[in-house]
């Protein structure tokens, strides 16, 4: 019976991971979701000599299934909650360092409970080596923070804060993320529901078993998540484990009201199903989309100016030279301020994605005779004819 559970859960995990990719193929979108994947893909290329992002996705899926396999003996049938975590589809169906690190972290955690830590570490060392250099340090945060819980309170807080700052500040390109939840449209963030339930569970663990490390770890990762996507993803995985424990608690608690247990767990089950299905659809429709791929493929030579987030993706899709223009250039309305920059970079084309069509630069391009439309639609390309021509 136990074995059957394991197989069903593994099958469901594979279904969650492949469904979003099948949806992308069905919609004609490039297979690999999220523009960030291509940036991370670029980092891997240094180590793997130009391995395509499409191949790296297989590593992520394998890492996802490996994580589920590692958790199965620990959580049993409750591993299903970890799979139903909306972030599961985001992390393990796109190439990213956290996907590769997840099985390693879980393995170290499991091994720390037994005497096979060396074996686990050796087995997963190749995965560890594949990750860009900054991420192993980010992964150290969850490992170090619980350890600090053994110290005195003030020392613990200071150490936890300093470890995070010292490790992450110099090594990361921080980008403040004001919407750190899936429910607000950020597909690479934990779910608000999972976060609330995880905080509740962490609080209960503190009250009942005096386990303070877990709440320090989770809150620390969430706080860092405001600045670092990797930390946010790790917080998402931690929340999934805490929610698993919370729902186990709900299942086992003695309910007073007749039927309350079934109504409540039914509601939570529907909620999880709704979240994960929504998320699979979100990953299926995430950037980059078909329209960008088709638009970019229609231009064959020259230098194209692209929004910063798209630079890594477009660089891999076209023989054109790409120039990732700084954000403030997209907010320019004055031709005199824009033209020298374009001339200096040798820009021939400018790519406007859906969001950037509403930028000030697009308004300038529309109303200046030194730009000509090449492709107009959801994604637009305009040709820059030079600063001197009138």
């Amino acid at each position: 019976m136990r074995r059957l559970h394991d197989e069903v859960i593994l099958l469901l995990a594979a279904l969650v991971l492949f469904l979003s990719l099948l949806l992308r193929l069905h919609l004609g979108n490039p297979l690999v979701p999220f523009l960030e994947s291509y940036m991370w893909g670029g980092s891997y290329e240094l180590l793997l000599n130009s391995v395509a992002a499409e191949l790296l996705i297989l590593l992520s899926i394998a890492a996802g299934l490996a994580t589920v396999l590692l958790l199965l003996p620990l959580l049993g049938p409750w591993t299903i909650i970890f799979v139903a975590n909306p972030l599961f589809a985001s992390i393990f169906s796109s190439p990213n360092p956290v996907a590769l690190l997840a099985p390693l972290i879980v393995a170290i955690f499991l091994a720390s409970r037994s005497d096979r830590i060396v074996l686990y570490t050796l087995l997963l060392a190749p995965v560890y080596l594949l990750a860009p250099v900054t991420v192993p340090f980010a992964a150290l945060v969850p490992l170090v923070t619980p350890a600090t819980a053994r110290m005195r309170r003030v020392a613990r807080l200071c150490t936890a804060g300093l470890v995070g700052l010292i490790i992450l500040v110099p090594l990361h390109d921080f980008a403040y993320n004001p919407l750190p939840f899936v429910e607000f449209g950020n597909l690479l963030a934990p779910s608000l529901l999972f976060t609330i339930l995880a905080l509740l569970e962490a609080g209960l663990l503190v009250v009942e078993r005096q386990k303070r490390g877990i709440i320090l770890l989770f809150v620390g990762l969430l706080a860092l998540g405001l600045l670092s996507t990797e930390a946010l993803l790790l917080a998402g995985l931690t929340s999934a484990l805490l929610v698993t424990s919370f729902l186990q608690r709900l299942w086992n608690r003695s309910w007073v009201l007749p039927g309350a247990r079934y109504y409540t767990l039914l509601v939570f089950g529907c909620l999880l199903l709704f979240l994960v299905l929504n998320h699979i659809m979100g990953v299926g429709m995430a950037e980059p989309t078909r329209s960008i791929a088709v638009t970019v493929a229609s231009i064959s030579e020259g230098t194209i100016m692209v929004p910063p987030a798209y630079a890594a993706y477009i660089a891999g899709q076209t023989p054109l030279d790409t120039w990732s223009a700084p954000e403030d250039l997209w907010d320019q309305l004055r031709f005199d301020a824009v033209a020298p920059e374009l001339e200096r970079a040798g820009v021939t084309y400018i790519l406007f994605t859906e969001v950037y069509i509403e930028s000030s630069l697009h308004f300038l391009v529309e109303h200046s005779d030194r730009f000509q439309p090449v492709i107009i639609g959801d994604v637009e390309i305009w040709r820059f004819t030079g600063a001197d021509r009138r």
Partner: protein
Amino acid sequence: MGRSHALLILLIVLTLALRLLIAFSQDSPSYDTYSTLFQAEHIRETGLPSFEEPTTGRVRLFSPLYAYLFAGLSVIIPPLLLAKLLPNLLAVSLIPISFAIAQQLTRTRWIALVTGFFAAFVPMLFQSHLNAAPQLSVVLPVSALLLLSLFTIETKPFAAFVITAFLVLLSPLAWLFVAAYGIYILILFTERMRFEDAYVDIALFSFGLAFWYSLLIFKRALIVHGFSALTGNLPAVIHEASFTEFSFLSMIYAVGLVPIALACLAIYHNTFETRSRKVFLITALVLVVLLSTTIRLIPLRTGLLFLSLAFILLSAPGLLQLSRWIRRTRFSWMHHWIAGGLLLLFILTSLLPALAGGIRPLNGPDEHELAAYAWLRDQPTGVVLARPESGAVIRHLASQPVLAEPSYLLIRDAEQFLADIDHVYTGIVVPDVVATIIEHNISYIMLGPLENAVYDDLGVLVRDECFPILFSQGTVIIYGNTCRTREVRR
């Protein structure tokens, strides 16, 4: 039937008669009622609420349960009559519910009766929904009913489940209760009192259901607007107007001095002496509503309605403590005089302001506006520009699509949208005004009492030949547009 029950019935009948007298003295219901009437009509015709306006592409996000209830009842009772009857019946239903809750809290009939009297004539409750049938008119009695069912959860657990589910499906305001459960459990924890597992059961159930339903209905708004979806993505001006600064004085004016004083006494006494779980639960609700109103998560008016209800209920244990305290002093012989004095104070500070507020003309379209809507109904289909408050009434009575409605969810740049509306009325450069009109595909521009109240200085709309008068009667003028941007520039 005891004397107190007879008095209760008399109070209900008198209050209902008074409310209906005021409601039927007005010709048409308030502007916001037409949203309910429109949705009910749409449900009767198609079986579904109108979630999208085909002409303008505007999407309406709301919980449809109330619209279905209203549509169902309007099959038996004519909709306009129902719009006046239903909210008043629901408002009056607060009297017996408050009576029952006060009975639960104090086990004293005369106090329960006084609480019922408070529920009938507290200014905020009395003046609200006299001539309006918005969703909130149902939410308040259902909330009171939920409190009552929570107090009897041990004997009737199923009722609490059903009412919780009903409230969650009715309105996002159910989140107030979800948060109140959290605060309640926290209070019990800090007071080192034992949790009642039944409340934890209900809290978990309502949290899960509220989260799921909110995601189902408002998912798109949350993705588009992020956190600002929680306050309806309102433009700053509208936000300032409807979420006005909360102050203690505004609370006293809305709720009344006597209920607030008695409620404060009850909270104080309960915290330090009696430690009743039921009073802690209502206190938790008060804290949540106060916090939500202060940080402007819910409009001030909604907050004050919930506070009125909570303070009325808390005034029952307050009155009980006061009565016990007086009986223990040398002035116990003055007990009846003091009770009479309190009642007189309530009449002076709450009942009279409530009646004075209720007798004033209520907000609804006048006969000129109704004539304009009737004229618009016979015109070719075209987008009507008017103030957002009259959006629903135009949609319902004129059967024309409107540009602006009171909801701003899924409008990407709500500030610009409102600025465009203002620009059509106050713009002084004809090509710019024409460009805005063309951009939004506007066919009719309405200038009625609502618009005149907002715009002191009207622009080229009222004096340029590009905007001919299509209809004019009394206070209402409807303009058209005959110009294109290029023609004007030439």
